[in-house]
């Protein structure tokens, strides 16, 4: 147990690609935490998926030890998730620290996420050490970036550290500054144990592992623990620290950061933000503040492309959920797509990661319906939560609907401010404020329906600003929304997978786009196929796929017969991959393409 005065707990907060993982690598080297021969890039991002995407999904803490001025310090570097989907997890990681290094790419300048995390850190009362990274790059403009940081956060530009995580320049000074400036933790060594869980994960051999920060008291390696929010007891098996490999310790004292093998088997019971105390009479009375249930924000139906893979999909989701406590799923039956699951995600990135892992790690081929948000349908006193557009009641059967709204922060070069404002306005945005960070860059805050954000907002933002704008958002609440359900009918049969809940003003446009798209995708049948978009009983768009008239091989003589028979056999195999909706045969690819377009085509034309 280290004396608290020798402990420094800190995070690095940075926008994606601003070099956080590389800086962590340098710190590991500098403190000799990893033997030179074992060093590899992005050391802390253990999962393959993370390494390729260059982002961190799971927060982790690593203990470093550094000697300076004749004293040895225990430094706990807490890694934070770097994406907007995981804001709550970031806030818990920050709650485990006393200081942050705010890392900014010297060529890119401040981005929306940097700013959002800066605000989180400042609101949490943390010491902030600003640093510019990538000063070795030819296009880096450290003076301008430092001036921007100074203007925004009220620092003297000379106080901004300048490093290159890649080459190591300036990293020692930065480390010394962490020790000098970040205050040591304050906690009650003799008080009842209170430890904050800032991450949890599932190890197939050891069960649920919690990453935690001891705030008050002492956590012995083996102890009977109590989870205060979950209201559960367990026999913890081992406490330890990541240095950076897992290393058991006899106990974790106040201010220390480490892991605990909780003795529990279900990761969902060990939630980020919960407080661990000891079971029995030493139990703490008050839990640590800030606990929140992780709530899925984005929903989508996942269906196996091959109907027979339903069991495999269920098994895969069960396995995935062991290590991903934010993932929700429930069985769903679609007339068009068969048996599958309605899944809830923290955001679009989380959704993409889950889909990719299901396909890559479990070898599944999936059809995903267009993502949607959660709607609250209000009828008198009664509120129905709807996760699936096809379950949205028909207009007239309820009083009103509420939809989730987020507070969005966009930072953009000033020259693109017009197009950005136009985009936000067209997405039913409500501007809160706007300011110039410098003559060249502006920051705007909007309240935006989440449904608009998940409808290709980010792509549109990037394309209107040549990739320069950045976006961050956080949940704001639920607000009344004039939304309606648009259904798509094939030959008179509604196709549940194509139903969507959209704002009334865009319902016609959506229906039109969907129907036109499907007309291109649905192959001609032996009869005319009507494709209709409807709101309630009203048809808002209609197209027809004309009946196929010609499908015959023109010539068939002695030398052709074998080849033509093979062509017929091929055609027969193709038919086996069709899904039947009522009387209409729809190829798998049509579903995939139509659902993808649904997500991307938002405001095209």
């Amino acid at each position, binding site marked *: 147990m280290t004396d608290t005065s020798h402990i420094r707990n800190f995070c690095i907060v940075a926008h994606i690609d601003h070099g956080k993982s590389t800086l962590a690598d340098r710190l590991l080297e500098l403190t000799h935490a990893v033997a030179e021969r074992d060093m590899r890039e992005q050391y802390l991002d253990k999962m393959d998926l993370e390494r390729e995407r260059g982002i961190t999904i799971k927060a982790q803490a690593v203990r470093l030890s550094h000697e300076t001025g004749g004293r040895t310090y225990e430094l706990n570097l807490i890694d934070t998730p770097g994406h907007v989907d995981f804001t709550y997890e970031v806030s818990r990681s920050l709650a485990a620290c006393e200081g942050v290094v705010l890392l900014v790419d010297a060529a890119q300048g401040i981005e929306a996420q940097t700013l959002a995390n800066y605000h989180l850190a400042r609101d949490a009362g943390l010491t902030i050490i600003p640093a510019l990274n990538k000063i070795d790059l030819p296009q880096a403009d450290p003076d301008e970036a430092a001036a921007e940081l100074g203007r925004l956060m009220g620092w003297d530009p000379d106080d901004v550290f300048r490093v290159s995580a890649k080459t190591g320049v300036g990293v020692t000074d930065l480390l010394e500054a962490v020790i000098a400036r970040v205050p040591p933790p304050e906690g009650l060594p003799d008080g009842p144990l209170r430890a904050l869980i800032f991450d949890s994960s599932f190890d197939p051999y050891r069960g649920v592992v919690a990453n935690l920060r001891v705030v008050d008291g002492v956590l012995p390696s083996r102890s009977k623990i109590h989870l205060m929010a979950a209201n559960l007891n367990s026999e913890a098996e081992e406490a330890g620290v990541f240095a950076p490999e897992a290393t058991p310790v006899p106990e974790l004292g106040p201010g220390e950061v480490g892991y605990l093998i909780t003795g529990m088997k279900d990761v969902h019971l060990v939630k980020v933000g919960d407080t661990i105390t000891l079971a029995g009479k030493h139990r703490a009375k008050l839990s640590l503040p800030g606990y929140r249930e992780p709530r899925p924000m984005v929903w989508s139906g996942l269906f196996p492309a091959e109907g027979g893979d339903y069991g495999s999909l269920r098994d895969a989701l069960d396995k995935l959920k062991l290590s991903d406590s934010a993932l929700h799923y429930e069985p769903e039956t679609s007339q068009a797509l068969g048996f599958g699951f309605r899944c809830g995600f923290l955001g679009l990135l989380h959704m993409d990661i889950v889909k990719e892992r299901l396909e890559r790690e479990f070898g599944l081929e999936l059809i995903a319906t267009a993502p949607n948000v959660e709607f609250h349908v209000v009828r008198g006193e009664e509120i129905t939560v709807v996760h699936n557009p096809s379950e949205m009641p028909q207009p007239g059967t309820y009083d009103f609907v509420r939809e989730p709204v987020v507070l969005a922060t966009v930072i953009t070069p000033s020259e693109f401010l017009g197009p950005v404002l136009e985009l936000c306005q067209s997405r039913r945005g409500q501007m809160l404020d706007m300011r110039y960070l410098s003559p060249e860059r502006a920051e705007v805050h909007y309240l935006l329906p989440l449904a608009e954000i998940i409808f290709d907002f980010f792509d549109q933002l990037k394309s209107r600003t040549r990739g320069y704008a950045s976006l961050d958002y956080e949940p704001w609440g639920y607000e009344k929304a004039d939304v309606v359900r648009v259904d798509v009918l094939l030959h008179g049969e509604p196709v549940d997978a194509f139903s969507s809940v959209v704002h009334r003003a865009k319902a016609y446009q959506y229906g039109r786009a969907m129907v036109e798209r499907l007309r291109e995708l649905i192959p001609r049948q*032996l*009869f005319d196929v009507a494709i209709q978009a409807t709101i309630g009983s009203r048809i808002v768009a209609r197209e027809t796929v*004309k009946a*196929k*008239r*010609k*499908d*015959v*091989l*023109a*010539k*068939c*003589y*002695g*030398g052709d*017969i*074998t080849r*033509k*028979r093979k062509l*017929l*056999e091929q*055609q*027969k195999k193709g*038919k086996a991959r069709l899904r039947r909706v009522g009387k209409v045969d729809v190829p798998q690819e049509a579903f995939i393409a139509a659902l993808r377009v649904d997500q991307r085509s938002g405001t095209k034309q």
Partner: protein
Amino acid sequence: MSAGIYVHVPFCLTRCGYCDFNAYAGLDHLRSRYVRALLREAELVAPAWVEEEIVSVFLGGGTPTTLEVVDLKALLAHLRERFDVVPDAEVTIEANPDTLDGAKLEGLLGAGYTRLSMGAQSFDLRVLAALERIHRPDAVRRAVREARAAGYANLSLDLIYGAHGETLESWERTLRETIGLGPEHVSAYALTIEPSTPLGRKVQAGLLPAPDPDLQADMFELACELLGEAGYGHYEVSNWAKSGFECLHNLGYWERRPYVGLGAGAHSYRDDRRWWNVRPPEMYTERVEAGHVPVGGEERLEPSDAYLEEVFLRLRILEGVPASWVEAQKAEPFLESGLLEDRDGALVPTERGMLLLNELVLALVG
């Protein structure tokens, strides 16, 4: 059992843009060796066919009329000598109008080639250009006149519809002109773009649109109408004939009678076995000269393959499939929608059904 002989002649004056047959321009130096190889191959394979009565001989290509009359005459005489060719066998030769003149036509008829099948394709110059054909519409008119003068009483014209730029009106003029020339037999094919052809490459590269299947369907219906009115019977998807002039040789393929193929790439069939010669003419001649049967591959038809072929070929020639072969509920929707009709217990495609024959076959067999 009655059988047919097919002889493949792979030489052409030029290569047409749509053609993916085993045919070559600029291979004339091989001609006399090739003819000798045909004679030799006939000797090699004839013993296996002594049991069969040959009711038809068909010289196809390529352009068989690129060969000299004297060679063609010797070839047919040789076939009659080696095989049991019945005296009144149907003997067809395919011709390109540019290779014909009065003397050649008299020679061919005298040699015993009593049925002449000519590639007319279209009477619209623009359509011929789109097909990359070298002859002009006049050449067909002249060749038909000269064939009649030479004494030909069994003429067939081949037409192709749906080339880029061809309209329904242009196709109607081609049909009416064809009917005006009065051939005994007409074949009309919807242009099919084969990927390995010059046209196929242009379509793939986006330089040419693919034929519009709906327009081709309209053209098919127009052909049915006009040829029907003019007294031609529609006896196969793409073939019409005056009564008694149906092509016996081709019917042999569709009725699954045996046939022996001679020449480069030619296919043979008997007793659910199909085999074929090597395709390159040089390789073919070398094999034969070395005294080998020039077979390049074969397949044995499984009962399910044979059944599939039986069904789709029967549907093509409007003989139809006995209703008892097919589960009633499979045929029902097509009878109702008018793609099939029940003719004395046989399921026969209607005109509309013929255009959707692949769908019918897959639904009835699948």
